């Protein structure tokens, strides 16, 4: 690293325009290897994906460690395919919502609900569809798996992008209208860059969420359809079936390695690069660092490789989409009637859909089923509340302790973020083994699994909040010798409150989702079930009982949305209003 730094200092050509720029250096070699490696991996994985479905019968998933790298690759490719699909979806749908009031009326409430709905439940419906779309090919099952991951990732990204589009700074909006930027140019020069930081953050969150579902979506078992796509998820399912604890441990280790790799190779460089998109007028003291990004920037030849790319982009920006010639300045009262008509159409369509659903459900379900689902919903709700409270009691003091010590925060923060990205369901079998061997009550002891993966959001948000707590306020409270309880109540808890709410909100949403996998856990032929709505949905899915799946998802959605509206939103608003420190 030192040698590189010196080399960088010696090479003082401005803008790297020196003729030496054509000679590769050490960095070039590393970058080259990375790029070629990525291409080979993608090509290899893509070829396998197109294999016929029957080849799975010939070469089923086996617990051979030699296969594990290939499985990891397949799983990772699925993740990235889903994230790409989510990005495309985000650009299209969020833009549509931000530009068209009629679309906005439908898209935004839909996104709001989809964000909080247990996406795992969708799996049931999509598998059948995709298998029929590509008969006989693995591609159908792959698409189903990718779509399942996509449904876990897209909504919050779309929402974040939409919100950025709606809050574009008014002076930059004026500039782009004033200089008559085409819609295309405006999108790439103003809207995407402005939205980039939020979108990247949400993409990372989605990636973490996706891992959770990749495990569940590879080993597809809906009714009598059973497909095990090669991947870490299938490996894990098989390990559980065969009660192979060593294989579970291997899967955990592989997962950790994969997450570490893409974090270092993909997300860190992107964050370091995207730092320039942060909307602020002063240079920040601390800029995000990434060794890969530095490597690429220092590589001489690699920069040349990007020249044609840059040229293409600059040509693309010249594309002039046919736009309405002179957009007359909008008057606020125009189109009011059109909106009302549209709203009426939307409401009518919703009512019709609702009626159809109810008719479908009432054909097989009785009122007692609904009552049961609601009752189970309250059980799960109780679990979520107790667990979030417990996690808060544990992690808030620890987070504050860490956050107030910069040296500790610096070390802990990446670990907490890594743990949040780690799919906790991989660890479930270990917990099940423990519950079975210790003869514990599954109704109680399965519950902590729900927050296993999501509690870290509380930790790293509290750490961030405590780190950002103003030094002068800390000094003042030391000076006035506030007693410890008073210090917690009047100083630090209000100080970290907005951060805590953000973390707890994320954790609670994740816990609801996790309940579907956490309330039912198995180890070989042992099946543990905790009474709850999550178990209700999981069992209905296993049985291919569509009406009960729909009912379960519907009830859970209502619970999540009500919980968000009645608890988290008011808290969020309170945090915004009262406890902001800037």
């Amino acid at each position: 690293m030192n040698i590189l730094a010196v080399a960088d200092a010696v090479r003082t050509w401005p803008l790297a325009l020196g003729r030496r720029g054509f000679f590769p250096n050490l960095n070039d070699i590393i970058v080259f290897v990375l790029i070629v490696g990525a291409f080979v991996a993608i090509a290899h994985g893509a070829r396998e994906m197109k294999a016929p479905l029957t080849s799975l019968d010939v070469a089923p998933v086996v617990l051979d460690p030699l296969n594990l790298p290939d499985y990891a690759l397949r799983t990772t490719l699925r993740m990235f395919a889903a994230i790409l699909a989510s990005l495309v979806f985000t650009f299209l749908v969020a833009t549509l919502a931000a530009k068209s009031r009629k679309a906005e009326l439908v898209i935004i409430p839909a996104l709001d609900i989809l964000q909080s709905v247990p996406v795992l439940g969708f799996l049931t419906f999509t598998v059948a569809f995709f298998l029929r779309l590509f008969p006989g090919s693995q591609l159908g099952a792959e698409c189903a798996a990718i779509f399942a991951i996509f449904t876990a990732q897209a909504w919050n990204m779309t929402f974040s992008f939409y919100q950025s589009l709606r809050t574009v700074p008014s002076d930059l909006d004026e500039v782009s209208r004033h200089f008559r930027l085409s819609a295309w140019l405006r999108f790439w020069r103003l809207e995407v860059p402005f939205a980039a930081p939020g979108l990247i953050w949400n993409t990372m969150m989605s990636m973490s969420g996706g891992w959770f579902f990749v495990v569940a979506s590879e080993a597809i078992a809906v009714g009598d359809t059973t497909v095990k796509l090669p991947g870490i998820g299938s490996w894990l399912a098989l390990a559980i079936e065969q009660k192979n604890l060593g294989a579970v441990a291997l899967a955990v280790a592989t997962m950790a390695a994969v997450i570490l790799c893409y974090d270092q190779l993909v997300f860190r460089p992107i964050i370091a690069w995207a730092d320039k998109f942060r909307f602020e007028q002063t240079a920040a003291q601390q800029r995000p660092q990434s060794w890969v990004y530095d490597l690429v920037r220092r590589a001489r030849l690699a920069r040349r490789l990007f020249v044609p790319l840059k040229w293409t982009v600059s040509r693309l920006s010249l594309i002039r989409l046919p736009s309405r010639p002179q957009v007359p300045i909008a008057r606020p009262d125009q189109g009011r009637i059109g909106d009302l008509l549209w709203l009426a159409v939307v409401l009518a369509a919703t009512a019709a859909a609702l009626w159809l659903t109810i008719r479908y459900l009432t054909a097989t379900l009785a009122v007692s089923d609904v009552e049961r689902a609601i009752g189970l919903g309250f059980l799960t709700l109780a679990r979520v509340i107790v667990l979030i409270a417990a996690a808060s009691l544990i992690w808030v003091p620890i987070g504050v302790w860490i956050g107030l010590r910069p040296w500790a925060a610096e070390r802990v923060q990446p670990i907490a973020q890594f743990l949040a990205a780690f799919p906790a369901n991989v660890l479930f079998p270990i917990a099940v083994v423990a519950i079975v061997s210790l003869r514990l009550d599954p109704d109680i002891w399965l519950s902590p699994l729900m927050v296993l993966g999501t509690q870290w959001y509380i930790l790293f948000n509290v750490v961030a909040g405590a780190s950002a707590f103003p030094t002068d306020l800390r000094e003042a409270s030391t000076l006035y010798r506030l007693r410890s309880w008073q210090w917690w109540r009047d100083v630090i808890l209000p100080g970290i409150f907005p951060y805590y709410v953000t973390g707890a909100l994320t954790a609670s949403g994740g816990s609801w989702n996790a309940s579907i996998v956490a309330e039912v856990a198995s180890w070989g032929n042992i099946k543990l079930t905790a009474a709850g709505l999550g178990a209700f949905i999981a069992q209905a899915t296993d049985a291919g009982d569509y009406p009960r799946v729909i009912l379960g998802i519907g009830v859970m959605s209502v619970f999540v949305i009500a919980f968000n509206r009645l608890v988290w939103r008011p808290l969020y608003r309170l945090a915004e209003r009262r406890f902001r420190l800037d």
Partner: protein
Amino acid sequence: MDAPVAAPVSVNAPLVEVDEVRLAYNRGAANDLLVLDDVSLALRDNEIAALLGRSGCGKSTLLRIIAGLMAPSSGAVRIGGEPVTGPAGQVAMVFQSFALFPWLTVLENVEIGLEAKGIAPEERKKRALGAIDLIGLDGYESAYPKELSGGMRQRVGLARALVVHPKVLLMDEPFSALDVLTAETLRTDLIDLWCEGRMPIASILMVTHNIEEAVLMSDRILLFSSNPGRISGEIRVDLRQPRNRLDPLFRQLVDDIYARMTAKPVGKPAREGLFPGSGIAMLLPRVSPNLQSGLMEAVADAPYNGRADLPPLAASLQMEVDELFPIAETLQLLRFAEIEEGDIRLTEAGKRFVQVDLDERKRMFSQHLVTYVPLAGHIKRVLDERPTHQAPARRFLDELEDHMSDAAAEQTLRAIISWARYGETFAYDEDSGVFSLENPA
């Protein structure tokens, strides 16, 4: 060098023609909020014109209407004889906040207007480098805006505007976000470029609230008065460039304009006249009572002894007109001072206020507040009449919102809360949003 002042009046049509432009915000049938009232002006070839007025008087709004960024409620704008119906191609604007894209380099920021026109990259770069060179930004091409000082950022804003070769350069308070020294350098550089004819533009229209800046730079000053915004006068500046701020003629002009800007409007109740609206619907500025007593003390002291000329007072307090006027006018509203002919004079009550101790000051302030500020009196009466002596703020906010924008209503109520707290006239509980007569013990 010869300054292009007093250019012969062109026989052609004016470059920019604003014709009876009116702008009203729709707030229910009878309560339209009039922002601009029948504004007409003409900008000719080869002149710098300044729209001078106080903040919130609608001058920036007018500039946006001229640029085609907003539509007037009625009236028309023509540039080179063509009516403006959308963002106009023949003008380029410089923004108060610079409005640079933080993720684009200086060069890319300057190129943005050309890129929008679909000009090829090579040509774009050539022209952008030319503009960067002209405006004195050589060497900063690859810097990002956040690496630059405010003055340099505004230079980027200027280069970006000039590179599209507009006929008219519109400047919206271009120097007001800069420190004094930087602003002066940039003004001088701009005037030099203009006088040497090196800028590819025919005219400049600038908006400012800084009287000296207007006198220093422009050939013609259009005085803008508030509520509703309209042009209240026109002043030709025939001084030769470069102008000297210490020139007696310069000073005389500045003094004149001060007097005209503080003159009481005709046909309105004398003391209320300077704030928009009337009665309880008067839009009040958020001027802290500490600033008010501070100004009274400054005027009462030597060398002013109760009567001060506003320009030197502003200079000695290191305040801009925009900061000083609202304080002075609040004092006038509360009958602690009178403003006339660009002077501020303490009333008897004002003189007494300066002499007494804090408790007595609060008592006087409260009394004047209830008597002379209609909204404060109104709230006090409601609180007195109610058996609980409580009333939600929402109620008064709703009343205000019938007459003004939501933001203005909020500002007005905030001003009242701050004043009433100082005078201990009535209390306001932030958490519950309720006014009450009880002061917390």
